C-alpha cells in the first residue's frame, strides 16, 4: 500500500455489508442459474452424457459388435455413476449452497466408512473412531458451510485449514493411547489419520470452492462459484475417462503393474494434455483466462491420476478390487471420489493463489491489512 494513502472508510476491516446484495453472497441464499454460461455448461454435459448413454445402450443391445462385454459393462456402470453425480450436483445447485455442502459431507462420511471398514483396527481404537466420525467429519463440513469469503472471514478459513491437520491429527493418537493398547500403535494411528485426511479433509476442499469469491473476477457473476465447482468435478471425471481412453493405445508403458495394470505412461501424458485442451476450451465458464484454465485442468488431471493410483495401492494391500466390495452390486463411493480427493485441495489452493494475485483483491488486501505486504494473502 502506498504510504500516506487515506484510511479506507469503516476502519481497517472492510464493511461486511458491502456485498450483501450480491446473488452469490454466502449469507444470501438465493440461487440464480440464469447466467447463460452455467446453462450452456450444464446442458452441454447433459447432451454429451445423453449421447454416451445412448451409444452404450445400443452397444449393449447388440452383442454381435464383438466388443469386450466386460469393458462395456464397466462403461455402463460408469455412465450410471455419472448420471447420479450430475443429478446430485445439479439438484443441489438449484436449491441452496448448504444442500450442496451437506451432500458432499454425506459422501465424505460414506467414503470414510468404506476406508475404515477395510482398515484393520483394534477395540482400543473405538473411541477415537467415534470422535473421527461424529465430531471431526461434521465439524469440517460445518466450517465449509459457515463460509470464508476471502479475508473477511479469515478466522473461519484458518479453522477450516487447520482443524483436521492440527487438532484432529494430534488428538487421535492421544485418544488411542488413553485406551491403553500399545499393539501396532503407530500403524493404527496412521491409518485412521490417513482415512480422515483423505476422505474428509481433502474432499472438503471441493465444496469449499463455493467460498471463493470468484464472481468478482468472472464474466457472468451469477452462479460463478457453482460453475467453478461444476467445472472442477467435470474436469476430474473427464480426466479419468481420457486417461483410460489413452491407455488403450497399442504401445503401453505400465507404470506400476502390480498396483494398477491399466494405468500407463501414455494414458497419463495423453490424459493430462487432452484434459488441458478441453479445460482451456471451456475457459469461458471459469474465472480463469485461456492459458490458466488449461494449466489448472492439467494439474487436476495429474492429481486425479495420483489419487487413483494411491488408492489402488491401498486396495491392493487389503486384497480387494473395489472399496464397495462390501456392498455388492455397487462400486464403492471411495472408488468414485479417490481422484476428486487428491485434486480438490490443489485446485482450491491454486485458484486461491491465483485470485490473490488479481488486482481486484490486491485493493482489498491493502484495505484490510495495510501494515502487511501485498502478497500476504498467498
Amino acid at each position, binding site marked *: 500500500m502506498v504510504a500516506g494513502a487515506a484510511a479506507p472508510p469503516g476502519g481497517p476491516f472492510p464493511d461486511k455489508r458491502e456485498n450483501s446484495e450480491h446473488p452469490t453472497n454466502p449469507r444470501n441464499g438465493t440461487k440464480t442459474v440464469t447466467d447463460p454460461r452455467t446453462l450452456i455448461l450444464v446442458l452441454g454435459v447433459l447432451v454429451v452424457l445423453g449421447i454416451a448413454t445412448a451409444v452404450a445402450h445400443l452397444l449393449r443391445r447388440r452383442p454381435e459388435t464383438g466388443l469386450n462385454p466386460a469393458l462395456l459393462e464397466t462403461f455402463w456402470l460408469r455412465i450410471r455413476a455419472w448420471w447420479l453425480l450430475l443429478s446430485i450436483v445439479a439438484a443441489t445447485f438449484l436449491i441452496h449452497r448448504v444442500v450442496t455442502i451437506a451432500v458432499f459431507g454425506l459422501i465424505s462420511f460414506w467414503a470414510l*466408512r468404506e476406508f*475404515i471398514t477395510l482398515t484393520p*483396527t483394534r*477395540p482400543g481404537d*473405538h473411541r477415537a473412531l467415534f470422535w473421527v*466420525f461424529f465430531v471431526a467429519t461434521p465439524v469440517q463440513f460445518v466450517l465449509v458451510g459457515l463460509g470464508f469469503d476471502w479475508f473477511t472471514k479469515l478466522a473461519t478459513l484458518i479453522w477450516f485449514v487447520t482443524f483436521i491437520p492440527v487438532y484432529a491429527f494430534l488428538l487421535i493418537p492421544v485418544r488411542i493411547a488413553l485406551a491403553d493398547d500399545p499393539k501396532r500403535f503407530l500403524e493404527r494411528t496412521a491409518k485412521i489419520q490417513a482415512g480422515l485426511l483423505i476422505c474428509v479433509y481433502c474432499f472438503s476442499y471441493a465444496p469449499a470452492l463455493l467460498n471463493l469469491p470468484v464472481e468478482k473476477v468472472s464474466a457472468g457473476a451469477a452462479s460463478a462459484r457453482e460453475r467453478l465447482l461444476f467445472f472442477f468435478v467435470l474436469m476430474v471425471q473427464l480426466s479419468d475417462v481420457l486417461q483410460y481412453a489413452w491407455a488403450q493405445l497399442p504401445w503401453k508403458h505400465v507404470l506400476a503393474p502390480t498396483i494398477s495394470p491399466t494405468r500407463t505412461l501414455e494414458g497419463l501424458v495423453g490424459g493430462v494434455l487432452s484434459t488441458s485442451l478441453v479445460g482451456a476450451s471451456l475457459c469461458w465458464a471459469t474465472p480463469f483466462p485461456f492459458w490458466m484454465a488449461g494449466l489448472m485442468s492439467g494439474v487436476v488431471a495429474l492429481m486425479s491420476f495420483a489419487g487413483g493410483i494411491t488408492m489402488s495401492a491401498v486396495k491392493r494391500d487389503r486384497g480387494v478390487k473395489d472399496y464397495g466390495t*462390501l*456392498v455388492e452390486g455397487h462400486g464403492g463411493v471411495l472408488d468414485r471420489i479417490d481422484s476428486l480427493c487428491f485434486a480438490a485441495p490443489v485446485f482450491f489452493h491454486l485458484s486461491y493463489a491465483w485470485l490473490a494475485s488479481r488486482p481486484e483483491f490486491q485493493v482489498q488486501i491493502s484495505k484490510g491489512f495495510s501494515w502487511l505486504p501485498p502478497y500476504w494473502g498467498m
Partner: protein
Amino acid sequence: MGFGELRRKWTEGMALKITGPLLALLAKFFSGASVRWVDCHPDTCQRIYFANHTSHLDALVIWASLPPEVRGLTRPVAAKDYWTAGRIREYLARHVFNAILIDRTEIKVHQSPVDVMIREMGDKYSLIVFPEGGRSPTGEVREFKSGLYYLAKKRPELEAVPVYIDNMNRILPRGEVLPVPLLSRVIFGPPIWLEKGEPKEDFLQRAREAVLRLKEL
C-alpha cells in the same frame, strides 16, 4: 375400555407402526449392512435363524435385515439381564422386537430355555438364536452349545437357517456403548435340518460349519 387397555394398545401400535420401522432404519444405517440371501429366500414360514454372536447389535441387525412382513413374525432370543436393564432396552425388547428373554442366571429344570423357546414360538413365530451362548470376544466363531440341537430335536420339521454377521464386533465391541458406523454384512445361507438319529456333536459341528461357510462368500 379402561385406561390401562387404551395405553397398552397405544404402546403396541406405536411399537408396530413407528418405533419398529424407525429402529430398523437406524440399525441399517449404523451397521451399513448389506444383506444377502444365498440359496435361501425370505419367507414367513417358521424358521430358526442361528448366527454367530459378536455384539449386542447382532439380534437387532438380523431382525432389521428381514423384510417387514417376516420381521413381525420373528422373535430374537435374548439375555434377560441385558435387555431388562433400563427402561428403553426393556421397551425395545418387549414391544418392538418382541424378544424371548432368557434368564441366564437362574435356569430351572422344568423351565429350561429350550422349553421356553418352544412354548413362546408356538406355531407362528420364527426365532433368532445365537448358539455360541454369548458374544465371542475376538470375533471368531466359537463352539456351539447344545441348545440348537435340542430345539431342532423338538421341532425337527423347522428349517434352521445359518446366518453369518461380519464386522459387527468392530461396530459395537464388547464393553462399548456408542457404535461406530462401519460397514457390515449379513448373509443368510441354505437351511439345514437335523438328520434322523444324528448325534448331537455332529449336528452342532455341521451347524457351525454352515455358518463358517458363509464367511467365505
